[in-house]
């Protein structure tokens, strides 16, 4: 059972941040009510975070990741779900690497 103080501090801050996000909406309902701009921002932010997190490593790595990402989108939209999308994405990258792509 090993843990570095720096890692523990980071995990504590992550736990507090996750709790703040989860509690925030619950508590904010008392003050913000249904403020339109806040509601619209909350609607758009999660997708924007996800594509931001994905695009840089895909662009940096190139070929195999582009094909894997395309396969993930197609499998998720057509097979309709998280698990098939994930398996197809990883399998496609493995096949692309086997075919010689980076």
């Amino acid at each position, binding site marked *: 059972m090993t*843990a570095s103080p720096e890692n523990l501090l980071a995990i504590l801050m992550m736990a507090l941040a996750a709790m703040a996000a989860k509690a925030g909406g619950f508590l904010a*309902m008392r003050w913000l009510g249904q403020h339109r701009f806040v509601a619209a921002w909350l609607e758009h932010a999660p997708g924007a975070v996800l594509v931001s997190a994905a695009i840089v490593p895909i662009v940096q790595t190139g070929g195999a990741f582009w094909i894997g990402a395309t396969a993930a989108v197609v499998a998720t939209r057509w097979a309709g779900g*998280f698990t098939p999308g994930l398996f197809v994405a990883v399998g496609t990258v493995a096949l692309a690497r086997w075919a010689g792509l980076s």
Partner: protein
Amino acid sequence: MTWRSFQAGALRMFLPSFATFPFGIGFGVAAAQKGLSAFEVGLMSFTVFAGTSQMVALDLWTHPLPLFALAASVFVANLRYFVMGAALQPHLPSLRWYVQPAVWHVTVDQNWATNIAEYRRGHGDLGRFLGGGFVMVLSWTAATLLGHLAAGGVLSDPTAARRLGLDFVGIAVFVVVAAILFRGKRDVASWSVAIATALAAKWLVGGNWYIVIGGLAGGLFGAWRQTRTSNDRKS
């Protein structure tokens, strides 16, 4: 809330909780490759209990750890729970203060979706909500530990993991969840802004700030566009 309703909620979420295993194992492998110990992986999964944001955090996990960026990215990546909490609050208006943190902690996608449907039909139950969440947090933690254990075997060889495409698991999660969330034309502009800003941030700022900067820019642009459109319709 009764012990029996807690048990019923736990039993009901037992099978759905297995859906977290592929992602959990992938996270455990990725965390092991970043040098986290099994204890740290288990502690993070149990206390943070938000898979996508944990994966985002791993992207930032380089020593010295950027603590503010880690907390900010976890907060922003979990903003959908902000919306879920807001939707849940009217059904639990007089919740005692010492129960609230437990409710917030187990407000995660599948548990929230199952229970909010019951609350809206008028027969929601706090015991079922907490019981389901308890099973979900245990299975998520177990899955990530299993991944960490697997990484100690054949997957500990980075070239083997790369050949198997496992270096793509984290990115694949973002792509798959984004594909699920995508609502067509409504999202194209804000996601394009997020992508362009993230790439520019990587080029201009460096490090891993692109997630927070791209996420904030795309979200704010989408909100501005949406509110402007509805104002135009009114006038």
